């Protein structure tokens, strides 16, 4: 089952595929230029010591994004196990 969630819900090690952005145009464009476009696979790599920002693996590059932004990026991912 595939569900739509926001990027910030991914935990380190989990993967998803970019679906859409609900961010200001310039920020969206900037992220897109770094390779985050619809259909691209992302993997949550690790978080900073304060839990935010988080580093994501995108097309072989590691990109750090604040949760303020990742909250507004939707992704498709395999439905997570409910019991965690």
């Amino acid at each position, binding site marked *: 089952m595939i569900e739509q969630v926001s990027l910030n819900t991914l935990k380190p090690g989990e993967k998803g595929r970019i679906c859409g952005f609900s961010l200001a145009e310039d920020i969206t464009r900037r992220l897109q230029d770094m390779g985050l*476009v619809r259909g691209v696979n992302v993997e949550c790599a690790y978080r900073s010591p304060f839990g935010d920002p988080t*580093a994501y693996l995108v097309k072989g590059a590691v990109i750090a994004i604040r949760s303020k932004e990742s909250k507004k990026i939707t992704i498709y991912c395999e439905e997570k196990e409910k019991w965690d």
Partner: protein
Amino acid sequence: MGLSKDSVGIHAIDEELVIKKKKENDIIVALAGNPNVGKSTVFNAMTGLRQHTGNWPGKTVASAQGYCAYDGKGYVMVDVPGCYSLMAHSAEEEVARDFICSKIPDVVVAVCDAGCLERNLNLVLQILEKTKNVVVCVNLMDEAAKRKIDIDLAELEKRLEVPVIGTAARSNVGINDIYMAINNVYTKEREMTVSEQEVHTPEYYVKRAEELCRGVIRFADAEYAKKDYKKDRIFTGKYTAFPIMFLLLMGVFWLTITGANYPSELLHTGLFKVEERLFQFCIWAGVPSVIREVFVHGMYRVVAWVVSVMLPPMAIFFPLFTLLEDSGYLPRAAFNLDKCFEKCHACGKQALTMCMGFGCNAAGIAGCRIINSPRERLIAVITNNFVPCNGRFPTLIVMITMFFVGSATGAEASLLGAAFLSSIIVLGVLMTFLVSRLLSLTILKGIPSSFALELPPYRRPQIGKVIVRSIFDRTIFVLGRAVVAAAPAGIIIWIFANIKIGDVAVLSYLSDFLDPFATLLGMDGVILLAFILGLPANEIVVPVMLMAYLAKGSLVEINDIGALKEILTANGWTWITAACTMLFSLMHWPCATTLLTIKKETGSWKWTFAAFAIPTVAGILICFVTAQTAGLLMK
């Protein structure tokens, strides 16, 4: 722009890029590419120049040019700041876009990171829409090979229809092939502009890059990237990140303090022996006594102090810092600290510009161009001075070793000193946060903008190269700058000390004038005067101070460096004086070059004044509180 001879101090203020051809038929080549793919390394390999390199995105913020000849032809190489696309987002990316699209370059060399080729092609495709005179340079092939990434360059060349060259610029592999490819592209056919076409969406380029790479790139070891994670788990881990940051800082200072001890001693003894000889020589040569005094006891002595006390720590700190920079640790520091900056409504990339400030505040301020939001950029510019630059470390080190390490000796003393110095840096960083927050609450109101920072793979720094380069480049540069600032300061001090108005020397007159105010701040008039005269270069503050005390005649014999403390205590110094001097050194007006850079970067005297006044006011307040509280406690 990183820290090298050409990017610190007055050179941080870059001029408009003017292409300098030597011959009419020289080929102008632009080196473009994503941030941190090794453009500067390729540039250096081709031109033999030493454009500063470092492992973090945004190091090059202004274009640099160099000239090289190969096979009888001349090439003007232009190292353009890195960018992710030709749609500019920040000042430094604008520089890149404008130049690539300007039709000035005859050939564009698009440099890519072999380890991240598909993402890099995104930009290559955009460049190809502007010009067909492109050579694709797939750099870092050595690193890709280590990561078991296999790239079929011939197939990529066929698909892109422009030459594709694999290089490992660090070890000069493939550089000659670039020349040949440039030449082929240039002589083939000058089809410079491509017909206007519709604007594509970012998705288009990503999809296109994906298609191009299908079958070209093979990952033999898909898990390799995860090896970096292991390091990152430690360097950015919840419980380990900050202790490691502090330990790294302390380690660097410990090495600096320990390493500087002996050369300082040696230089001091040597240079003061020379002073004696010089003086004897002047007497023998019949130089009039006034000139003899001015030049030997004024100018020469201050220069000698600068060289012996200030130079060794700077010469050691700098290569160490460069090693850290090359390793890829700095972006992790920015990653760790971002939350704090977000809380202060500032940008996490400010951590990078702050780190640059350790080397040189002027370079740090020029580096602020990597910050996209103008508001956050101004915050970073104004607060940059709260981290002490290379020129202020020695002042802090001198104060610490004389007044705070106490009876400890040897390794214990230098460890204690390093811990002290690191704590002062932490204080500077905390002040950066505080002032950033205050600014964003008052004159620079606004909400934090976005933050997206690429964390590059860790790279092993080329230790030998770094040390040789930074010692030769930097040491000679610092020496020159310090001498240029110190020599006139020495003359001024001597004249102030020897010209009398009535019965009082001008120097006493001035320091007495400043004294009441300075005493409130826990210092004395001479110290404040030294800070004022130190405006051209922070390196000369301590030497000017010592000179002024000597000129006042309380102590003339200076046999060894241990005499420093005697000079100071004889003039009423206590640990409170030292503490306040350190605090004021950390927080006072930026040096003249930094101020000029701020004017250049902000284009406004108003913000330059703010950058002058804010740290000064902070320093005055904190010194006042410290001095008064300490005074009360000591009673």
